[in-house]
């Protein structure tokens, strides 16, 4: 057991898997001597060499596209896209190719591929870098989309992703990369996909989030507690597969729900959460489910991002309103 940041937990997972299975390799921009722009692969090229820790040319579509071929050749690629926003450069290789090879080949070519990328705002990164576009990938049916929010899950879910026989998009919460540490077992372990995490238990309202938004939910829950409003905080962890049961179980108890995400409101994954809950828990709902998200504009200038991103205050306001209604 050691206290690790998310960055360190991710590195630990990569080390575990690369040592345990020589078919596992890492590729992406600057993953070599630099150790990645966030140091998640720090020290790996010295340990495993350029063949297994490969600095690619600056071309995202070929990073994802070649990972498909590498997997077919018998390797297990873990590709890093420097920032989730730049998966757009590889978009046609994601849903249409990575997500369909098993299907199109009727099982002949399953793809054990993991695509890692940091996501989210609040760190004043340049345009595109912080874009929260997870919902766009959920609309590509055969890619798993998972989004850990803490060091323990980061390690366990990354190992699960690397071992998953199907493509997994592993989205990392950039803002929380080095924010706080948590106990993480030294040995390899997995956190199964499709099981949400009940972060905090309450009775009046359920706050649902994923990735860095979980932190916002926790902050809001703490504030609400001061007002005598107790909240369930649910960390979805994975959007595909989705843990509908856990959401319904919570709503059935609380009857109220606020969904929080960093992506703009319209067609964000929050809409799917709301739609699913009103289908599955309609008669348990005491009030309309609220969505607290960023607004339907492009990502604003860095100096304005805090006014654009969902905040605990906005979550509190939404929750309070429905509880006192």
């Amino acid at each position, binding site marked *: 057991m050691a206290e690790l940041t998310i960055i360190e937990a991710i590195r630990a997972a990569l080390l575990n898997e690369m040592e345990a299975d020589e078919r596992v390799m890492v590729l992406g921009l600057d993953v070599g001597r630099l150790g990645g722009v966030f140091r998640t692969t720090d020290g790996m090229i010295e340990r495993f060499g350029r063949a297994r820790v490969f600095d*690619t040319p600056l071309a995202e579509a070929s990073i994802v596209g070649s990972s498909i*071929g590498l997997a077919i050749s018998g390797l297990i690629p873990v590709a890093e896209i420097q920032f989730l926003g730049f998966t757009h450069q590889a978009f046609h*290789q994601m849903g249409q190719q990575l997500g369909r090879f*098993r299907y199109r080949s009727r099982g002949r070519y399953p793809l054990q591929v993991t695509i890692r990328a940091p996501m989210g705002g609040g760190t004043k990164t340049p345009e595109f870098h912080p874009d929260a576009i997870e919902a766009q990938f959920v609309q590509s049916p055969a890619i798993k989309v998972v989004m850990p929010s803490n060091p323990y899950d980061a390690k366990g879910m990354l190992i699960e992703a690397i071992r998953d026989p199907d493509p997994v998009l592993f989205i990392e919460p950039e803002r929380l990369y080095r924010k706080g540490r948590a106990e993480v077992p030294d040995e390899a372990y997995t956190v199964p996909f499709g099981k949400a995490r009940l972060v905090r238990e309450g009775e009046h309202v359920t706050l649902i989030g994923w990735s860095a938004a979980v932190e916002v939910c926790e902050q809001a829950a703490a504030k609400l507690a001061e007002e005598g409003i107790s909240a369930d905080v649910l960390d979805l962890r994975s959007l595909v597969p989705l843990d509908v049961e856990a959401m319904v179980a919570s709503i059935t108890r609380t009857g109220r729900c606020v969904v929080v995400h960093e992506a703009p409101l319209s067609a964000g994954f929050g809409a799917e959460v709301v739609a699913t809950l009103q289908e599955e828990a309609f008669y348990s709902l005491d009030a309309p489910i609220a969505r607290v998200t960023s607004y339907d504009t492009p990502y604003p200038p860095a100096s304005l991002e805090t006014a654009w991103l969902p905040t605990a205050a906005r979550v509190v306001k939404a929750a309070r309103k429905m509880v006192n209604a």
Partner: protein
Amino acid sequence: MEPVTDNGVYQVLEPSGKLRKGAKPSLDDEFVLEGLRWMLLSRAFDSKATALQRQGRFGVFSPVIGQEAAVVGSAMAFEPKTDWLVPQYRELPAYLMWGLPLSKHILNLSGNPIAGRIPDDVKLLPTQVALAAQLPHAVGLAWGLKIQGKEGVVIAYFGEGSSSEGDFHEACNLAGVTGAPIVFFLQNNQWAISTPRAYQTAARYFADRAAGYGFPGRVVDGNDLLAVYEVTKEAVERARKGDGPSLIEAITYRMSFHNTTDNPSRYQDPKDLEEARLRDPIERVEAYLRERGLWSPEREKEFKAAAAQEIEDALAEAQKAPPPQPSQIFDHVFAELTPRQAAQRREMLGRD
């Protein structure tokens, strides 16, 4: 000196079938005959399939007509047991040479890709509809073989139109950097649906792009079976020796419609087609073999009868395949369906 045309195109057989000055064919007669057999089978299948499609018994497909020498000549330079074929969609005879049963191909064309699954022992990827998207896959595959010290060279087929996609560039560049054992085989058939080659690029030759990736590019007469074989063989040996990728531009001509939904009369000058017919790749090999006393009307009849029979058998075989079932919509999505997908499957089957 090398047998090349005035504009630097490698050519062994002149359109008439005569050996070009300086040419010393490296393909033995028996292999030339073998190549011709595949070319005739391909040509026969295209006309049969077109007929069936017109009767609505067949889906949309893209004939190889006019490009048989490019496809067969290149495929003959490989070892299907160890090498990999990454297709676009206009390379039927190559798939067959790699071991894909014709009946499987027919099933894929007639809307039953389920029964058309590629057999496990055939080193072939599914045909690619998203143009050029197969190229980075091919590079990753070749690179992966190299990393693991596995033998095997990859051939990636694509059209001149597809070479305008960003994926072509990214794939070639990565292949150069990794020294992957791959042959990029560009079939320049002068058309991308209705878009003429001249609108596709201002480059003199597509093969000129290879220099920008640090590996050799070669232009070959794609209607010349022997020339295509030799140029490809050279690239394959290069890759096998560990010297990395090559780009081959085979200059040929799409002698038919783009696919069965297309009507070239809207955009094609009939004269162009007439001229192209004078360079028919099959007639060229036949003339060559006739010259060498290896091709006679009898033999031709024999070959064509065999091809027709092979096609009939494959059609019959395909008939036996079970039709696709709705429940199969949910097969092979993931190793295991998500709970939500499983529920949708039950709903679809009326079991909810």
